[in-house]
Structure formats: C-alpha cells, structure tokens
C-alpha cells in the first residue's frame, strides 16, 4: 500500500514556461492526412493548439526560464534551496543528469542535492511526494521541483495516432515546510506488465540506436509511418487502463485521507485528451466546473500538464486555501494521485520563450 501522508508541507510558488511557437492542429499535416482527419481528431481530443520548442530548445531551458521567473517573484534566497529535482523523459543528455546542470545554471550552492526522476504523466505527483518526503526531514529547507518535457520530438508527425496530441512545456515549483500548510495525502502506483501501451522501443540500452532503428517504416493498414525510435501509443488500451484503475485509486486515496472525494475545490487531471477526461469526470460524478483544462491550448505535455493547468487556469481562481486533487496517469504504466491543500500559493504569470 504505497500511501503517504504529511502535515505542514506545501507548495509556496508555481510557474510555467512554454515556447511561443504555436501549432494550429486544424491546419496541421493537412497535406498528408487531409483536413477531415485533423477536424475529427481535434473534435474528439479537444486539442486545438500546442506549443513546439524550436530546434535547440530543451525541456531544461523551459524549466530554467520558469524557475528564474518564480525565484524572482518569490524573492527567494537561493542558498536556502537544498534539493533540486528535475522530472523529465526528455533530458538534455543521457548523462550527466540534467538536475545537476540546472544546479549550476541557476546559481545554486554546491551543497544542493540534485537528481532526475524518469517518469511520464504521473511524475509531477510522484515528484511532489519525493519533495514532501525530503522536507519532512528537518535538514532540508526548500525544494525546487522542475518538471519539463519536449514531447513534440518524441512522436512521428506521420503517425496520426499521436501526431496531434503532444506539446512542450516546463514548470518550476518551490516547496517548503510551514505550519500554515494542512494535511496532504499521496497514492503511488505502477504496472510494468503494461509497458507496451506507450513506449519507444529503441535508442536505449536494450535496443541501441542503429541505422535500422531510425529508419521510418509503415506500421499499420492506415499508412502511419514511424521509426523504432519514435514513441507509439495504444490509445484504446490506455483508455481501458484509465477507466479501470483511476477510479479505484481515487477511492483508495479518499478513504485513506478520510475525505469525501466530492468535497474538494478543484480536480486537476493529467491532460491527455478531452474525450477521456470528460468520461472520467462523468464516471466519478465530479462537477465539471471544478475540473480545469488546458489541453485545448497546450495539448498533452506529459508530466507538465497538471502544474501547467494550475498556472494557466487557476491563477486568478485560487482562494487563500484550496483543497485540490491531483491525478496523473500514463507511460509505464505509472499513476499517482494526491489530495493536498494549496494555501497562499504564489502563481507567476506564464512565461513564453
């Protein structure tokens, strides 16, 4: 039972950065797939626009920009940051860890702990649980949580199953111990038996990169084209997974937290596509007005989507105290949920790079 609870730890500030380069999905790849395909996909997924990082811009650059904005807005003494976490599956290099590069780039002390977390859509919630756990130890003062993705580069633009879904972004959060923060609860899960639902087959050490693995080929009767180093997704099975596992996990978490799942102020789900999220919300009987979405503007940004939605949609809505549910699910399969209080959280204006 991977359930965790904390008290007196919370998020004091949150910021996000996205590339200015905007993709209009209705016009995307019309020469290849035709307007009708784009229209059908947009109407089902709800994803109208996405942001693509230009060549040379990495997830870490987006996180760096978000972090500079947040540390300035919060007027934080950087020497108080004792841990920097970088969450991504699109790091700068295979080694060293991007978190270590960011420690230097952000001018943090050499006495800063730094490591990367390699998880996808569940990772912001996982990352929070790690930050909270470190802060529970008296020795850590502040944690800088950085979470960035350039998912636009992971998938083939010639595979219509994934070409219209993913976008890029990066966020930064500062977490600390303070008696003002209330109780928080986490549930963490994994199921590696479903590794093939969302995957990149080659380019790691199990199947190293070669001329063969980067060669594009037709992969199905629909004429979709990708290489073994592109990501693929079995959307139907992912949907099955979500409607099966997520309601169970949220029930488990709400029982553990002794909280009525329907009593919370906001429910922020991973932004996969509106069809799946709408169905999930309906199944859970959660009022739609408490469920903010940002996928219409940014698409699926993997682990970034939950905090990006908070920055984009809740900046002006949040009251002094808000009880929120966060729920991320995807590649792994890996899924995680949290119920926590967001109190007096400083949310910076969205940064565009």
């Amino acid at each position, binding site marked *: 039972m991977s359930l965790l609870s904390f008290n007196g730890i919370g998020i004091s500030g949150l910021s996000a950065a996205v590339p200015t380069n905007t993709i209009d999905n209705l016009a995307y790849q019309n020469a290849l797939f035709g307007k009708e395909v784009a229209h059908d996909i947009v109407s089902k997924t709800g994803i109208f626009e996405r942001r693509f990082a230009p060549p040379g811009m990495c997830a870490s650059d987006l996180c760096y920009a978000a972090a500079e904005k947040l540390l300035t807005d919060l007027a934080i003494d950087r020497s108080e940051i004792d841990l920097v976490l970088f969450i991504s599956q699109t790091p700068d290099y295979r080694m060293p860890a991007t978190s270590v590069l960011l420690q230097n780039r952000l001018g943090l002390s050499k006495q800063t702990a730094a490591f990367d977390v390699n998880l996808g859509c569940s990772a912001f919630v996982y990352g929070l649980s790690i930050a909270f756990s470190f802060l529970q130890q008296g020795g850590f003062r502040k944690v800088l949580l950085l979470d960035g993705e350039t998912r636009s580069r992971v998938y083939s633009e010639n595979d219509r199953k994934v070409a219209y879904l993913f976008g890029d972004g990066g966020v930064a959060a500062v977490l600390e111990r303070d008696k003002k923060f209330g109780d928080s609860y986490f549930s963490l899960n994994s199921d590696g038996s479903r590794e093939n639902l969302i995957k990149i087959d080659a380019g790691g050490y199990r199947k190293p990169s070669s001329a063969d693995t980067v060669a594009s080929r037709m992969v199905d009767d629909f004429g979709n084209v990708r290489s073994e180093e592109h990501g693929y997704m079995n959307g139907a*099975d992912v949907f*099955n997974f979500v409607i099966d596992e997520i309601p169970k996990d949220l029930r488990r978490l709400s029982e553990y937290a002794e909280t009525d799942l329907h009593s919370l102020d906001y429910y922020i789900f991973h932004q996969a596509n509106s*069809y799946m999220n709408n169905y999930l919300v309906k199944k859970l009987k959660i009022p739609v007005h408490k469920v903010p979405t940002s996928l219409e503007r940014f698409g699926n940004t993997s682990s970034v989507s939950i905090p990006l939605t908070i920055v984009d949609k809740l900046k002006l809505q949040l009251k002094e105290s808000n009880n929120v549910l966060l729920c991320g699910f995807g590649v792994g399969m890996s899924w995680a949920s949290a119920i926590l209080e967001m109190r007096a959280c400083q949310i910076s204006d969205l940064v565009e790079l």
Partner: protein
Amino acid sequence: MEEKFIKAFKEALELEDRTIDLTDTFRDYEEWDSLGHLSLIAILDEEFGVVIEQAEFNKLNTVGELMVEVKKRMA
C-alpha cells in the same frame, strides 16, 4: 439485452442509420477507427459496466462475438 447492445454499439460508431447484423465483422465497417474504438470502450463501461482488455478484444471479430463477451463479463 441484444437490443440494448446493438443500440449502444450503433451509437458508439455513429451507425444509427444502418442495419447491423450480429455476423458483421465490425473492423470492416468504414466507420471503425481508433476514435470509434474509444467511444465503444466508453459506452461498454457506461452501459454495461464492462472493460475488455486489448488482448481479449483483439480475438473478437463479429458484433455477435463482442455481445457474447459483454454478456459473459456482466454475469
């Protein structure tokens, strides 16, 4: 059950105007695609409380076989 199933099946794939036979191979319908598949998953869960794993689903070919599988899982 059969009537309810056919109605749900037609709704999912937007086949309301068509006559559906239990012997039809549903993947041969022009309307069958990955988006239609998502609708079918949602409606089977919503109307019948049934989730069929992909491996099992892939073994089903006709509308009738799908209906039998749904019935079996409801029991």
